[in-house]
């Protein structure tokens, strides 16, 4: 455990806007030691716009991130970027390579980029991504851009965390039934067809367009933007769509509902994590494999004082 003196020193450096303090604070959160920091800084957060960016591996998420950061910087906004890549299930190591696309922003003092390994967390984010976003928010970034791991069909946690979720898709990745499937296709506030110079880009746009037309949406109908992240084509349009969604969130009051949901999600995540640790410990102590797994689970829960 970190001593109170260490935490106080870190908070002082955080107040003095030292990037190393933010970096260290994120590391502590990743280690499960972030609670006192978050408690101290929570009231300061809530001002940043959080944008989630998801999509399959290789669709161009990092290149889109770089283009969005560039756009935000031309508007004078300070940007924090969180980029999640998977950890090895075997060695727990990770190769975090999303920065390669963001090199032009490395020495911009108003851009802070953090790579996170998923460390076994499912859902497309790392366990501490929400904490990292909150810390960036409290540090004073206007925009926090969160890039998920290369998502499959069911990594949808980003929608719980971000105010606006962008789902990026690429041409030539399946037939018209793919876009009808449940999961990731349901969480988009804005769809992006990246690599729009690809010969099959128009086909994908038509398929998404017709999927949007037949789906039953509420007051916000997802927008569809075609981009070439590498050249910057379509990025102004994408930014405009993000801004329209922000206006919708604020005017409709949906932003409050999303905040409450994100809060509840985070509380569940923290509480479930603590219980998981306790179960893990009880299981280590209860080495017997007698009876069936349900009976054993009941025994473990009883030992924790939980009665079903």
């Amino acid at each position, binding site marked *: 455990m*970190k001593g109170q003196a*260490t935490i106080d020193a870190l908070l002082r450096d955080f107040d003095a806007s030292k*990037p*190393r303090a933010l*970096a*260290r604070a*994120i*590391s502590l959160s*990743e*280690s*499960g030691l972030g609670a006192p920091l978050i408690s101290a800084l929570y009231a300061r957060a809530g001002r940043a716009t959080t944008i989630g960016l998801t999509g399959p591996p290789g669709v161009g998420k990092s290149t889109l991130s770089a283009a969005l950061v560039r756009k935000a910087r031309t508007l004078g906004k300070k940007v924090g970027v969180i980029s999640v890549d998977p*950890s*090895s299930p075997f*060695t*727990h*190591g*990770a*190769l*975090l*390579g999303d*920065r*390669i*696309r963001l*090199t032009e922003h*490395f*020495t911009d003092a108003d851009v*802070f*980029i*953090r*790579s996170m*390994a998923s*460390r076994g967390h499912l859902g497309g984010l790392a366990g501490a991504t929400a904490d990292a976003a909150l810390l960036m928010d409290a540090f004073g970034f206007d925009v926090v851009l969160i890039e998920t791991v290369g998502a499959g069909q069911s990594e949808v946690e980003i929608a719980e965390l971000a105010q606006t979720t962008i789902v990026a898709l690429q041409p030539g990745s399946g037939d018209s039934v793919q876009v009808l499937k449940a999961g990731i296709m349901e969480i988009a506030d804005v769809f992006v067809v990246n690599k729009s110079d690809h010969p099959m880009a128009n086909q994908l746009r038509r398929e998404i367009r017709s999927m949007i037309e037949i789906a039953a949406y509420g007051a916000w109908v997802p927008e569809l933007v075609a981009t070439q992240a590498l050249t910057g084509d379509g990025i102004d349009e994408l930014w405009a769509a993000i801004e329209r969604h922000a206006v919708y969130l604020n005017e409709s009051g949906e932003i409050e509902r999303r905040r409450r949901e994100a809060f509840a999600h985070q509380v569940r995540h923290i509480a479930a994590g603590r219980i998981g*640790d306790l179960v893990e410990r009880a299981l280590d102590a209860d080495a017997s494999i007698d009876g069936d797994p349900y009976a054993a689970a009941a025994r473990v829960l009883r030992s924790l004082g939980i009665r079903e």
Partner: protein
Amino acid sequence: MRARPLRIIVAKAGLDGHDRGAKVIARALRDAGMEVIYTGLFQTPEQIVQTAIQEDADGIGLSILSGAHMTLFPLVVEQLKAQDAGDVVFFGGGTIPPEDVAELKRLGVREIFTPGAPLQEIVDFIERECGKHRELVG
């Protein structure tokens, strides 16, 4: 709770497009259970050090095969000191003559691995030195 994995920056600097070695190292460190952040090619010393700060890295491994090692390594050392990040373990590798290795170590580079260095030796070095760094900063 499992210990937090060591976080290591693998960097390529200057006009040097050969990153096969850097990728082999990155992969070996990943397989040793570390979180490796690869910067990509053509980085300046300032970019590398900023990356290490934002990523809260325990170490930086810089690969140089261009012959510019006597310029680039010292610039990274300088930048680390200037950014109050002298505690980050800075090491490197590449085609570097023995007399230059000695001089670079004198200037503050912790270790230089030259062609033929066994991967395990590099992993052991990082685990030992960056483990000490972890004890220092928590």
